[in-house]
C-alpha cells in the first residue's frame, strides 16, 4: 500500500498486467512455443550432420568437381555401418534421397555390403558396388543433406533447389508441385470468397432490413449451420453429392440425366468448392449484416426522392456504405479458406487438395517434417499478413462470433 501511495499511476498498471500474466504465460508455453519449434524445425535438421560428422568434415574440403579421396569413402563407410547399427540409417537415407532421388536404395544396399566387407581400400570397393559413388552429385547430396541449418526446405516449398555449384535453380519439372498448388489454393479461396459475397450480400440485406421480430428468426437460419460441426457439414455434402446420393437421385428422378450419366460431384474440385462455400458463407453474412443494419432506410428513400433510379441509388448510396462489411467479410472468408484442411481432405479427392493438405501429407505420410514445417511457416506468414490488414480495417477483437 505504501508503494502504491508513492507512485499512484503504477498500481493499476501492475494489477492489469498481473491479471493478464497467467494467460499470457499459458499461451506462450502451449501455443507460441510450438510455433517457434516449427519455425526452428523448418531451418534446422541435425540428423545427417550428427550421424556423419567425419564424412562431412572431410567433404568440406572437397573441391566439388572431382571424385573425392579415399579418406572420404573410408569415413562414410564407417559412419554408415555405425548408423545402421544405431538404426538411424533409414532417416539418413531418406533425407539424402530427398535431395537427390534414387540415393535411398544406393545407401541401404551399399551399407549392407559394407557391413560384411573387410576393411579398405573403400573407394574402389564402393564404386564397384554402385557407380553412383563415382558421381559428384551423390557427394553434393550428402553434403547438402548434412547442413545443420539449411534453407532447402524453403527452397523446396517454392519449387527451387540448391544446384551443385551452390547457386539456386528450379526443381526438375516433375518435382514442381508446390507453386502450382499454392496457386490453386489462392484461386479456390478467391473463388469461394467471390461466391460467398454473391450469395451472402442479398441474404444479409434481407435480414438487415426485415422487421425486427423476423430478423432474429432469419439470423438463426444462418447461425444454425455456423454452429454445426464442420465434420457434420462436410459429411452431409458427401451424402448429398455422391454418385448414389440425394442430388444425383433427384436429377435422375426428374429425368435430367439417365442412370448411367450420374454426375461426379464429390471427391473432386466441385466437392471442395461447394462444401467450402457452404461452410464459409455465414462468415460473410454476419459482418455484412452488422454493417447493413446500421444503414438507415431513409438514405434510399432520399436518393429516390432526388430522382435516382433503384440501381443508381444502390450503386451510389447503399453499396459504398456497405464496403466495410464487404471488406471484412471477404477478408475473413479468404483467410479462413487458405488454411482449409478437413473439407478438402474429405471431399476433395485428388484434384481438390489444397496447400494445408500437403502439410498434413508431409507430417503423416512422407514424414518430411522439415518441409511440412516450411510449408506451415509460409502459410502462417501469409495468413498473419492478411490478418494485419484485417486488424487495420476492422480490429481483430471485434471479429464476429455470430
Amino acid at each position, binding site marked *: 500500500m505504501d508503494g502504491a501511495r508513492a507512485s499512484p499511476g503504477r498500481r493499476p498498471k501492475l494489477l492489469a498486467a498481473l491479471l493478464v500474466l497467467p494467460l499470457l504465460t499459458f499461451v506462450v508455453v502451449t501455443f507460441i512455443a510450438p510455433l517457434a519449434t516449427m519455425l526452428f524445425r523448418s531451418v534446422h535438421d541435425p540428423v545427417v550432420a550428427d550421424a556423419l560428422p567425419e564424412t562431412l568434415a572431410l567433404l568440406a574440403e572437397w573441391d566439388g568437381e572431382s571424385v573425392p579421396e579415399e579418406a572420404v569413402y573410408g569415413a562414410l563407410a564407417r559412419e554408415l555401418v555405425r548408423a545402421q547399427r544405431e538404426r538411424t540409417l533409414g532417416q539418413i537415407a531418406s533425407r539424402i534421397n530427398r535431395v537427390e532421388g534414387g540415393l535411398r536404395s544406393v545407401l541401404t544396399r551399399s551399407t549392407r555390403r559394407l557391413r560384411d566387407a573387410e576393411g579398405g581400400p573403400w573407394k574402389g570397393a564402393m564404386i564397384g558396388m554402385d557407380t553412383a559413388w563415382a558421381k559428384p552429385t551423390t557427394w553434393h547430396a550428402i553434403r547438402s543433406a548434412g547442413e545443420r541449418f539449411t534453407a532447402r526446405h524453403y527452397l523446396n516449398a517454392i519449387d527451387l533447389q540448391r544446384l551443385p555449384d551452390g547457386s539456386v535453380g528450379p526443381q526438375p519439372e516433375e518435382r514442381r508441385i508446390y507453386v502450382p498448388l499454392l496457386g490453386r489454393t489462392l484461386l479456390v479461396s478467391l473463388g469461394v470468397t467471390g461466391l460467398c459475397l454473391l450469395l451472402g450480400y442479398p441474404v444479409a440485406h*434481407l435480414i438487415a432490413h426485415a422487421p425486427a421480430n423476423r430478423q432474429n428468426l432469419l439470423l438463426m437460419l444462418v447461425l444454425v449451420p455456423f454452429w454445426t460441426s464442420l*465434420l457434420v457439414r462436410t459429411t*452431409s455434402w458427401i451424402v*448429398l453429392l455422391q454418385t448414389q446420393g440425394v442430388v444425383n437421385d433427384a436429377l435422375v428422378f426428374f429425368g435430367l440425366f439417365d442412370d448411367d450419366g450420374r454426375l461426379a460431384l464429390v471427391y473432386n474440385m466441385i466437392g471442395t468448392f461447394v462444401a467450402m462455400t457452404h461452410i464459409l458463407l455465414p462468415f460473410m453474412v454476419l459482418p455484412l449484416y452488422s454493417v447493413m443494419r446500421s444503414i438507415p432506410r431513409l438514405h434510399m428513400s432520399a436518393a429516390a426522392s432526388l430522382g435516382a433510379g433503384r440501381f443508381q441509388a444502390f450503386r451510389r448510396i447503399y453499396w459504398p456504405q456497405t464496403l466495410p462489411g464487404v471488406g471484412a467479410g471477404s477478408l475473413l472468408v479468404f483467410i479462413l479458406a487458405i488454411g482449409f484442411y478437413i473439407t478438402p481432405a474429405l471431399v476433395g479427392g485428388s484434384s481438390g487438395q489444397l496447400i494445408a493438405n500437403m502439410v498434413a501429407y508431409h507430417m503423416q505420410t512422407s514424414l518430411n517434417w522439415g518441409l511440412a*514445417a516450411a510449408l506451415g511457416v509460409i502459410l502462417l506468414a501469409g495468413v498473419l499478413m492478411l490478418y494485419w490488414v484485417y486488424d487495420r480495417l476492422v480490429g481483430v477483437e471485434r471479429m464476429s462470433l455470430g
Partner: protein
Amino acid sequence: MAATSPADRVRGFVYLAFCAAVFVFLLAPILVIVPLSFNAQPYFTFTEGMLRFDPDAYSLRWYRQIMADEAWTGGLANSLIIGGSATALATGLGTLAALGLASPAMPARRFVTGLLISPLVTPVIVSAAGMFFFYSRLGLTQTHVGLILAHAAMGTPFVVITVTATLSGFNPNLTRAAASMGAGPLRIFRQVQLPLIVPGVLSGALFAFATSFDEVVVVLFMAGVEQRTIPRQMWAGVREQISPAILAVATLLIVFAVSLLLTVAWLRQRSGRRTA
C-alpha cells in the same frame, strides 16, 4: 414508397427467390441428414418407403448401433473429459486476462491482445503441426493432458473476446461508486463486475467447448487410440467406410449445436447487448 410497378414486383420476386434458394443451400444439407439417420436400410438416400412415409422404412437401428458401440461411447467420454477440462482452463485464464485487458492502465495492450488472439487466427493445420513437434518433445502426445492443453490454448481467444466485449459496455462509474463507498477491489469484482460479465464468460466458455468438441486436426496429429474423440471417430468413419451410423451421430451433433446456439442467444439477450 411509391406505388410498385410490375418491373419492381418482378425484381422483388427474383430477390426473394434468390434469398430463399440461399437459405435452402445453407440449411438443406444439414436437414437432409436428420431423416436419413432414421433410414431402416443401409443407404444414404431416401428409399421409396421413406418417401411414402411408410413407418417400416424408418427405424432407430443406427442409434441403437452407436449406443452399443464402444468406439462411439468411449469417444464421447474422451470428448467430454478433454472438452470440459480445456473449457475450464480457458475460461478461468481468459476471464482474468480480459479483466486486465479492459483496464485503461494495461501496458502494451495491442501487442498482448494480438498474442492472446493468435490461436484463433492461426490455421489449424499449422497449430497442429507445431503442437505435434513441441508436445512430442515433452512426451505429451498420446496423453489426455496434451490434448487438454492444446484445446485450452485454442479456446482462450473466444473467452477473451466475449468477456472483453461485455466489459467494453461496462460503466466505469459503477466501480468508482463502489470504491467511494469503501469496497475493496475483490469485493468490487465479486459484487459489481462479476454479475455483469457472467453472460460473456458463459458464452465464451460455450464457444471454447464447441471448439474443442469439434476439433479433429490436433487430435489427428496428437491422440493415440486411448484419446480418440467423437470428431476423430467421425473422421475415421467418413474416410474409411461411411456407414449410416455416422448420420445418427451427425444428427445428435446438430441437436447439440442448436441447443448451444439457443443458449448463447439467450445469454446475449440477458446481457442486454450484442457482444459480437
